[in-house]
């Protein structure tokens, strides 16, 4: 029984590691006004400091707080912990009356929403868009 549990743990950890080792990509539909974004622009979009690009109001998409990809995304692009990010948006929404990034349950939902709206941007694992042609990688 002990061996089975250890084996399962090894499988689980190797799966998690493969995701963690994968690259996060920032994606949008082909109609999005830019073909690439700098990390500093991505940070400003997700902190609500850039709302308009080429006269189009951008809507950023987030993933669940419990997801590994959100934790990685915030560490690499925003330099915030999940708690700090949550608090930042509570303050910003309360102070300015703006709307925070829309939370999607999974990368699949992020990709589906991006295909439908030209002003959406989101983040997924690179692996997850390997065979998807309707979106472009901005970073």
């Amino acid at each position, binding site marked *: 029984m002990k061996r089975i549990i250890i084996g399962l743990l090894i499988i689980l950890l190797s799966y998690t590691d493969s995701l963690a080792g994968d690259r996060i990509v920032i994606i949008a539909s082909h109609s999005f006004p830019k073909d690439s974004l700098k990390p500093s622009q991505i940070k400003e979009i997700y902190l609500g400091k850039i*709302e308009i690009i080429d006269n189009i*109001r951008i809507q950023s998409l987030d993933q669940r707080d419990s997801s590994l990809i959100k934790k990685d995304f915030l560490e690499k692009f925003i330099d915030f912990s999940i708690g*700090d990010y949550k608090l930042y948006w*509570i*303050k910003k*929404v309360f102070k300015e*009356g703006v*709307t925070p990034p829309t939370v999607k349950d999974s990368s699949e939902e992020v990709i589906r929403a991006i295909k439908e709206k030209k002003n959406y941007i989101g983040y997924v694992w690179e692996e997850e868009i390997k065979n998807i042609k309707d979106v472009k990688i901005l970073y």
Partner: protein
Amino acid sequence: MLINNKLFLFVTGIFLTLLTISSAAHSFELHGFGHVNFLQSTESKKDQASFSLGELVFYISEKVDDRTDILIEFVVEPQAGKGDFEIEIERLQLGYIVSNAFKLRAGRFHSVLGFWNTEYHHGVQLQTSIERPFFLKFEHDGGIMPIHAVGLWGSGGYNTNTLNLNYDVILANGSKVQDGIIDPNNYTDDTHNKAVSLRFAAESNKVPGFKAGISGNYAPVKGFKGTTEDFRVKQEIMALDLTYFRNPIEFIGEYYIFNAENDMVSGENYSSGFFYTQVGYMIKESLIPYARFENIAIDLNSPYFSAINKVNPILNDSRRVIAGVRYNLSHVNCIRAEVRFIDNDTIADFNEYAVQWAVSF
């Protein structure tokens, strides 16, 4: 903008109906703040220890369309000594984003004076300490500053390589003092000249966490006793704020100057100043010991302050030292305990001991 209790059920009913309709057709999120207090004071008239409910704050922020946002905030506020409560519509603002450098809003919003007033306002859980500095009280609590405004508000930001710059400009109804209480004139302006407020703030990318702001308000202000005009002043408020928030250190310092020229008695001018400074240090992401010093020195010859002081004594020429500790149960949930030493030149010095549990939701 107070709603009397008879309207409470009506407003609540409408609100719940909106919630129901919205949840079916278009979802939006209702957020808020709530807190519960315990206070023991050695002030002679308030010496019994008491538990109390704090304000219950609700707000909704939504996109109306691609460029337009709406924010609605209202507060259910227990009335001290009445065993009752009032509902106040704190903010109702419509915002239209023109570009990243310019957003225009209309409605009722917070004035743009200073840091604390713009950063925390009714979001009690967001601030480190239990209470606001005492000269930043809300208008209906005996406050001395115009905290709200009704009119137009333009704001925006610009990033350079080294600085993150932000500005706010407000054109609003000038406030009045009605029977000793500041009223932002929600429905009509009793002066021909509007109030103008400005705020500029800069953050340095080279010193992350440091922010400096300068703000000002110019307004003609009338005072009334009932329907009789009591005074008329031209008032200038200037404020400077410096803040530093970078784990584990936090620092806030604000200085305000009120200058006023009497419009009814030629040659009479008044000047008052107040400041506070607060420091905190976070230990292990959850515990923050903090301390604050506040100082208030007001020219009570000013008819503006005199009128307020008659209804809600300002505790002029006073100093307040606060020492406390905040424990974060999570980012949206905290318990704080603090002791306050109030030293002033008009009544006997006294102490307060307070505990508060506050949440954001």
